[in-house]
């Protein structure tokens, strides 16, 4: 038996097929992954992502500490509630994890992946040396993500008047502290949505209320196809400690200015960006297969410029053909993937396939 979220029994009640996910017993689907995927693209679904790790950072130097720790710059968060996506790098530029950081009244709230929890916490703690900053995990909090074109109406309708008014006026990539709940317009699907970070004891009731207004439970299977369609990386698959953000389509999440900000990995990624410009490093890009067949992680890609590999691949339920993220030589213009022994031409596109229910690449 693995670790369980406060909603474990709710998943069983909803007919979940439960699998091990990094030591957690999590719902992979509740029947059909494709139906759950389509539910999020066309209506509203709820994910239990309480397995993710919430870490609060406080102290007089919290800002300076995070400006050193993260490749993106928390100085951009000019008011409480604003959110930022960032990589956390090793000195050699390898990606320790990717995360979301919110500015809060007490400092910052960081949400990191669950599979990387132990090393993240150890690293974050170690880097506090020389800063007046504290790093506190908040395992007593649950996270529910409600996503889909009608997710806001559905979820806001369940809140008391005070919360509803605040959440109703939230801009994208912003959150609000409402008592011991934190509600933010962030997510991992490419649809409108809200994430609720709340005490574990409050989570089952919110889950029940959401299901009662026809928000459907969505498993980790659909979460993966939704994020892939949205062109979002999955840590451990599209990037890890052996890959630089430069070869992981994350260069735009690095804050290069101001030049004197000394973040961990800065020298390495600066050099890696130069190397990529000279063609010495590959890039993470999108692939599309419009005929039958499914691109899968690990498949070899042969381009006119050399070889590469698929890092994430699946059938896209929205587009009804296969899509993938692949790390291939830069300036590749044509490419093939060997599918079941047969070299098959695939198209190279920007790594962003679906937003707000619609195809976005040419």
């Amino acid at each position: 038996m693995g670790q369980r979220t406060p909603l474990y029994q709710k998943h069983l009640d909803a007919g979940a097929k439960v699998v091990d996910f990094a030591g957690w017993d999590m719902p992979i689907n509740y029947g059909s992954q494709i139906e759950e995927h389509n539910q999020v693209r066309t209506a509203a679904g709820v994910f239990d992502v309480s397995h993710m790790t919430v870490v609060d950072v406080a102290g007089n130097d919290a800002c300076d500490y995070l400006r050193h720790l993260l490749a993106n710059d928390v100085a951009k968060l000019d008011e409480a509630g604003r959110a930022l996506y960032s990589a956390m790098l090793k000195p050699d530029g390898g990606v320790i994890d990717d995360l979301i950081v919110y500015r809060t009244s007490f400092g910052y709230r960081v949400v990191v992946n669950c599979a990387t929890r132990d090393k993240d916490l150890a690293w974050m703690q170690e880097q506090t040396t020389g800063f007046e900053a504290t790093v506190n995990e908040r395992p007593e909090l649950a996270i529910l993500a409600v996503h889909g074109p009608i997710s806001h109406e559905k979820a806001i309708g369940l809140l008391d008047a005070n919360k509803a008014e605040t959440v109703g006026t939230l801009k994208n990539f912003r959150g609000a502290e409402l008592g011991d709940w934190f509600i933010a317009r962030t997510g991992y699907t490419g649809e409108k949505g809200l994430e609720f970070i709340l005490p574990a004891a409050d989570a089952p009731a919110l889950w029940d209320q959401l299901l009662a207004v026809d928000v459907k439970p969505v498993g980790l299977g659909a979460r993966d196809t939704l994020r892939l369609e949205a062109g979002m990386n999955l840590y451990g698959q599209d990037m890890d400690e052996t890959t630089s953000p430069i070869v992981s389509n994350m260069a735009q999440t690095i804050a290069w200015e101001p030049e004197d900000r000394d973040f961990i990995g800065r020298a390495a990624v600066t050099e890696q960006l130069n190397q990529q410009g000279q063609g010495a490093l590959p890039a993470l890009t999108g692939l599309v297969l419009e005929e039958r067949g499914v691109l899968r992680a690990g498949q070899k890609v042969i381009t006119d410029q050399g070889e590469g590999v698929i890092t994430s691949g699946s059938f896209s339920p929205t587009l009804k053909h296969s899509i993938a993220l692949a790390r291939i030589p830069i300036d590749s213009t044509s490419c093939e993937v060997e599918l079941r022994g047969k070299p098959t031409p695939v198209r190279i596109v920007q790594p962003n396939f679906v937003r707000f229910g619609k195809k976005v690449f040419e």
Partner: protein
Amino acid sequence: MTKIIDDLKYAASHEWVSVDDNGIATVGISDHAQEALGDIVFVELPEPGTTVNAKDEVSVVESVKAASDVYSPVSGEITEINEALLDAPETVNASPYDNGWFFKIAIGEEADLDELMDAEAYSDHCGDE
């Protein structure tokens, strides 16, 4: 628990076989197999007229999760394929023993059927996995 139909024969690789009075076998994949694969998104079928041996790979199913070969449980000649699966592969999930059949084959070697399991043996086989 997945459904296992009593009067069918089953291969260890999870195909089912139903034989009619004319020696024509209808082949599909079991409920256990479709459940394990998850949502099926593509099905590749053999060409009618092809002669195959027992345990040859004759068909492929791709689900959101994985690609999987389908083997012919018996030798013989493919006589008919379920073309509806090409446009509606999800039929295999919804109706594995009925509308989700894959192909029909004129049995070349009756003895191949003796290699297959009955429902009870197949149930044990699934339980052991």
